[in-house]
């Protein structure tokens, strides 16, 4: 059967409007879905992003049911929202909750370019889709869904027309499960003792033999933004958090200038930019 011939025949016909019930549900659900999507990308807290995505997915699930896809609507709510988003929340709670995004941009103008790209992509997609479809009359799925036969007809389609991809997806799921098992496996049988760990540290297997210096140690102030000092008086670069470092080095530069050389002799409490002579050990 030729879909394009049928569509061409209807091209001159009046565009079919949907029932008012469906229109009402669309105008309630679509802003919810869009709001959830925007909330997801703008929320600073990752768990809030996940909850906004759940809102979007639930509204999409109801939209599927309104659009004569009841099976997909239920699967969306039960499987996609109920299983996959719960898995996301589990992993967020375990891993990503603490690492909220900083506002410091890594690439300059990244947000501006992303916004421009987004507007361009939206424009391309919307114009491509909208102008061609103003003359199309939807056929609707009334006969496939008659008497609750939507599930049966989808089942028939999956097991007869699309049997091979279906078997392939079962192979995909087994492979995914095994891949995840391999990645998640931890070998708890061999734990290194404290002596072995110390030996490894001094043999150079890690970045540094000693723990990182905490902020504010041996400095003149007790704040997270003040760096620690090394034995020769210079600043320990790893002692300030990466997020704060941008401000600390700028602001401290003037302090260093004013304090450097003011106190005679080596003083571990002075803020010196670099060691000119040996300081206190």
């Amino acid at each position: 059967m030729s879909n394009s011939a049928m569509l061409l025949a209807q091209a001159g016909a009046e565009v079919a409007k949907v029932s008012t019930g469906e229109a009402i549900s669309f105008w309630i659900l679509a802003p919810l879905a869009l709001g959830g999507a925007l909330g997801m990308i703008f929320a600073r807290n990752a768990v809030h992003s996940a909850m906004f995505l759940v809102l979007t997915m639930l509204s999409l699930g109801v939209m599927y049911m309104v659009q004569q896809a009841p099976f997909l609507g239920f699967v969306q709510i039960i499987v996609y929202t109920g299983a996959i988003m719960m898995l996301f929340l589990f992993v967020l709670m375990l891993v990503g909750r603490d690492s909220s995004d900083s506002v410091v941009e890594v690439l300059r103008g990244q947000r501006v370019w992303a916004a421009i790209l987004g507007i361009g992509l939206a424009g391309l997609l919307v114009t491509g889709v909208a102008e061609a479809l103003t003359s199309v009359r939807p056929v609707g799925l009334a006969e496939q869904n008659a008497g609750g036969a939507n599930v049966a007809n989808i089942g028939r389609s999956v097991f007869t027309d699309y049997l091979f991809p279906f078997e392939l997806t079962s192979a995909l799921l087994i492979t995914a499960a095994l891949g995840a098992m391999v990645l998640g496996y931890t070998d708890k049988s061999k734990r290194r003792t404290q002596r072995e760990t110390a030996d490894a540290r001094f043999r150079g297997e890690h970045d540094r033999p000693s723990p990182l210096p905490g902020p504010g140690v041996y400095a003149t102030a007790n704040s997270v933004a003040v760096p620690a000092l090394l034995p020769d008086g210079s600043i320990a670069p790893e002692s300030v958090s990466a997020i704060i470092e941008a401000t600390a080095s700028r602001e401290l530069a003037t302090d260093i200038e004013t304090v450097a050389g003011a106190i005679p002799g080596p003083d571990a409490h002075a803020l010196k930019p670099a060691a000119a002579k040996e300081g206190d050990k």
Partner: protein
Amino acid sequence: MVQTVDYLAIGPPLILALSALAALFLRHAAFVGLVLAGAGEVVLLTGGPRRTFCVDTSCSFVVDDFTLLLQTVMLIAGLVVLLMAQGEIRDTRLPAGEFHFLILAALSGAMTLAAGRDLVTLVVSLEVVSLPVFALVALRRYDGRSSEAGVKMFLVSVVSTAVMLFGISLVYGATGSLFLDRIGAVLATPSPLESVAGVGVVLVLAGFGFKVSAVPFHFWAPDTYQGSPVAVAGFLSVISKAAGFAGLVLVLVIAFEPFARVWGPLVAVLAAVSMTAGNLVALRQRTAIRLLAWSSIAQAGYMLAPLGAAGGGAPLDDLAAATIGYVAIYALMNIGVFATISVVGWIGRYGGGELDDYRGLARTHPLVAVALAFFLACLAGLPPGLAGLFAKIVVFQGTILGGYGWLAVIMAGNTVIGLFYYLAWATRLFAPLPDGVRFGRIARPVGVAIGIAAVGTAVMSVVPQLVLGISTGG
């Protein structure tokens, strides 16, 4: 109506899948499986084309010349990958059973992709190829670089899948079918939904562009090759790329043929930019595996070039045959290079080493050095690397046939640039051995791997007509 299943047609991927499961428990099940699948391929080679899982006249799984060529090349490359991985598995204590399972699962997905003829099968098999590779790249769990490479590759890959799926949904909307031949038939008739299909075609092209690492979708490749085990990098560079090209050619030539004037110029631009960027950046690389990554990006540009000439009105079958011929020859050349670099590493570890680490290889391991020089000459397209020379000739012919002279000129320029870094590497092999440098013994599996790749490339140097001139059956 329930479909009939032709088990001989789906035999090779099915055997690989079953042996993947067996490889979790039995030691040599992977190699037995590869040999059996190869035997299945030989049986299929002697018969005619087979079609199975059909709905009326459109079939989901078709075994024709195109499929057989790609499946054979993938099997040989897969055998080389498994052989060269043996040493690395043992020495870096990777989980052997799971490693074999993941490689064989990805390989069976790649073989299925070469045979799929409807969009659902193509998408699902592309996922079956990709998911095990994510796990393989991140397999060295306690190495930060490995996990980082895995995350980068994963995020880029899922974004590309989403883009491709959106394109597929638009194409489905415009044509009403998911089978490639029916889509081609519907797109050939004029309809008011052409712009929808056009946007869909562009998005599908973008999605496949990620998989074949064409510029500007290439940025995951160098870091991923460097962070993963060398065998996995070889798999990515050869089998994953061949699967991506198989899918791309099938979709563009069968389904989107009526839109050749839309996607042709886009593919031409992608090809030109990939070649140029890949070659120019490869000139600056000092690490062997990053050089190979950028060289793979440039080679993807050469492979895309004939398809880029599709807008000129040349018969698509010839252009597709040029691309697939190059893919087949490239697969064996490149996997040979990876097999050879797996014997050189930083001190005590694997990873391919820096280019200067290869100086003097010819003094202690003459055969390996000659093999590597042969592979590099093939990649550059110089005699005595006749296989590579024939491959380059074929893609040049295809591009000129389509009337895209400017693309052929860019390709010629890039071939010259490529000569610089391939030859610079090859000459290091024959330099005098620096003091105090010792190359270790070559383990037997790696030697066999290099031998297989060398024999395959040599065969294609002598009888290239085996792999050239094969297009999709349509």
